[in-house]
């Protein structure tokens, strides 16, 4: 059986909480983003070894669904920020749960920035020095009167992902010191006691080797009433950990439910719902990868796999193993977020122009019709009169319109 062991002897990376009132200083970096609610945006500051919670102004709830079709986003952004496009390094993407506005974190030249983008293509940089903020430190700085032969900065936590659920901010990170993969739970509002676990997992290999691997991306989901961390690790096992087992800090049993393949960096774990015409929801997990296609897994399959014994056989060369995943044609996606009931939102590298686009991708199909040239696009193509072909025509027209090509609707 594949297990996950959590060691709570957290002598490793303790996240020391300090709450500051509104500070006028800009963060040193703006990396991972996460919304607690429509007016609370967490911004991880790995360079500053802290997490900031910014209070955004109240804004009107948007109930309509509008697709983003912002091709050349990185170019427009460079102009807005007065930097060269090549100097922009994108970090993360989050969608405001009420306004559905996109928030993008990045490094522009050397400066961190968070911008808000609306579907009409308006880019608004946030002034992180004027928004009300509370912060929590991620440094271990034991001051016990012992000094060293040279300046030895204390280990800090480089945040690899954030997820917020029910008053708790879950923080996965890598130590800049020893190779401890850490999963912290920080109560929000900040000021409560942080609990950190040094995470160890067993990999699915011939001899069940115990390892200490870093979590690269994660999502907190409800699996049949059990709050669970679904985490994608380096080299690329997908693991489930019930959060209740984290709370007591003792050894817990989790599962490596899949190995998604080596030579790959998982970039994001998303959970979202897809609705059919009767508004029945189907729930999914998606792992967005840097090298491999995005893996789509029905949440029910994740729940089932989480209850069953995990991988115990060696994973053969080349293949993936564990819970079945649906490959989706979402390549070039750097970051993605659940936009609304109809769409995922993606920062997507445009292979033709090289620009980073900010585009919505319709759930269920997981592609943008405008990325393809197919026989349907030839001027002399005529949809047949049968029901299937006319259904396809209607669907194509929907995609064309929402992807910004209403003139091609036929």
């Amino acid at each position, binding site marked *: 059986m594949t297990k996950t062991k959590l060691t709570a002897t957290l002598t490793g990376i303790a996240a020391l909480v300090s709450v500051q009132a509104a500070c006028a200083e800009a963060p040193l970096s703006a990396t991972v983003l996460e919304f607690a609610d429509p007016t609370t945006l967490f911004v991880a500051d790995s360079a500053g070894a802290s997490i900031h919670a910014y209070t955004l102004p109240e804004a009107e709830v948007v109930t309509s669904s509008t697709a983003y079709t912002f091709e050349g986003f990185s170019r427009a952004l460079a102009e807005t920020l007065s930097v060269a496009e090549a100097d922009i390094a994108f970090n993360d993407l989050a969608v405001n749960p009420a306004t559905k506005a996109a928030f993008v974190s990045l490094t522009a030249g050397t400066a961190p920035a968070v911008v808000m983008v609306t579907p009409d293509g308006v880019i608004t940089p946030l002034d992180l020095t004027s928004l009300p903020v509370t912060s929590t430190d991620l440094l271990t700085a034991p001051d016990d009167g012992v000094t060293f032969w040279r300046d030895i900065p204390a280990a*800090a936590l480089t945040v690899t992902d954030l997820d917020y659920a029910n008053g708790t901010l879950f923080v996965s990170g890598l130590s800049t010191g020893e190779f401890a993969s850490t999963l912290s739970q920080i109560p929000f509002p900040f000021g409560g006691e942080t609990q950190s676990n040094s995470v160890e997992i067993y990999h699915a290999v011939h001899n069940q080797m115990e390892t200490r691997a870093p979590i690269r991306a994660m999502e907190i989901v409800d699996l049949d009433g059990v709050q669970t961390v679904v985490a994608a690790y380096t080299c690329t096992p997908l693991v489930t950990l019930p959060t209740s087992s984290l709370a007591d800090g003792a050894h817990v049993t989790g599962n490596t439910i899949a190995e998604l393949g080596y030579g790959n960096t998982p970039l994001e774990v998303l959970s979202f719902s897809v609705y059919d015409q009767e508004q029945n929801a189907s729930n999914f997990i998606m792992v967005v990868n840097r090298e491999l296609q995005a893996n789509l897994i029905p949440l029910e399959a994740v729940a089932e796999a989480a209850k069953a014994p995990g991988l115990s056989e060696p994973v053969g060369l080349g293949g993936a193993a564990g819970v079945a995943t649906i490959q989706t044609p979402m390549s070039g996606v750097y970051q993605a977020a659940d936009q609304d009931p109809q769409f995922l939102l993606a920062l997507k590298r445009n292979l033709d122009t090289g620009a980073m686009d900010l585009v919505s991708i319709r759930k269920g199909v997981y592609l943008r019709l405008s990325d393809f040239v197919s026989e349907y696009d030839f001027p002399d193509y005529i949809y047949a009169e049968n029901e299937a072909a006319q259904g396809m025509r209607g669907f194509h027209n929907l995609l064309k319109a929402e992807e910004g090509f209403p003139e091609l609707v036929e």
Partner: protein
Amino acid sequence: MRLLLVVGLAAGIVANPTSACENPITSVEEVYPTASVLPENLLRFYIYFSSPMGRADILPAINLLDAEGSVVDGVFLSNRFDLWSSDRTRLTLLLDPGRVKTGLRANLEMGRALIVGETYHLEISQAAEDGQGCPLVAAHRVTFKVTDADLSSPSPDDWELIAPAAGTRQPLTLLLDNAMDHLSLAYRLRAVGPDGAPVPGRIALREAETLWEFTPIAPWPAVAHRVVIDPMLEDLAGNRPGALFDQPVSTPATPWSSSLTWTPKVP
């Protein structure tokens, strides 16, 4: 909401001034581990710079070269964010754990990055940019030879403790059974007095991180002391007391001493 968000970002953004840099001042001060022979399953390097480094991805400026000077690919873990100390003077460079750990696909298909008996060079290119956008004063290269994988846990019972004399500020010395991670030696070992509190003083390392030396601020009283060992202490391969970095789950827990008791010598 848009109207309420104040736009004030531009002041924080500066163009990259590389071309304007005439006098580079930043150099590589030290690379840990410092030994010239390293285990095949080495887990990480640490690179100390003399000034804070820039925010651009530094990995393209760091290469592992084989004896012939050819770049060895896929050695380091490419994280979304580089692992810098908060003052940006120390970079932690992880060797891809997928290749270090036995049985993972990366290990099966690509093997370990380091081959026993071979000589390698870790090279930090002059092009690595510091916080001012300047290149380094010079490229920095360390050369090491690879020996067999370290598959044993640190064993404090096998350490030799050389006790100082009571009433002096002579150093307390530990001769370790193996080279340890230098951060572990800074933060995971403490001389503790009879009250259980760490004794204030200064730690020094010698002999390629195989010798730990602690000099107290005040003379040692002639009472029993301890050296307390944090279970997170790691050697160069990430092995901890009682637990290898990479071990079969059936391995029984190995008992180990989490503290060593000693008393200063009375002259």
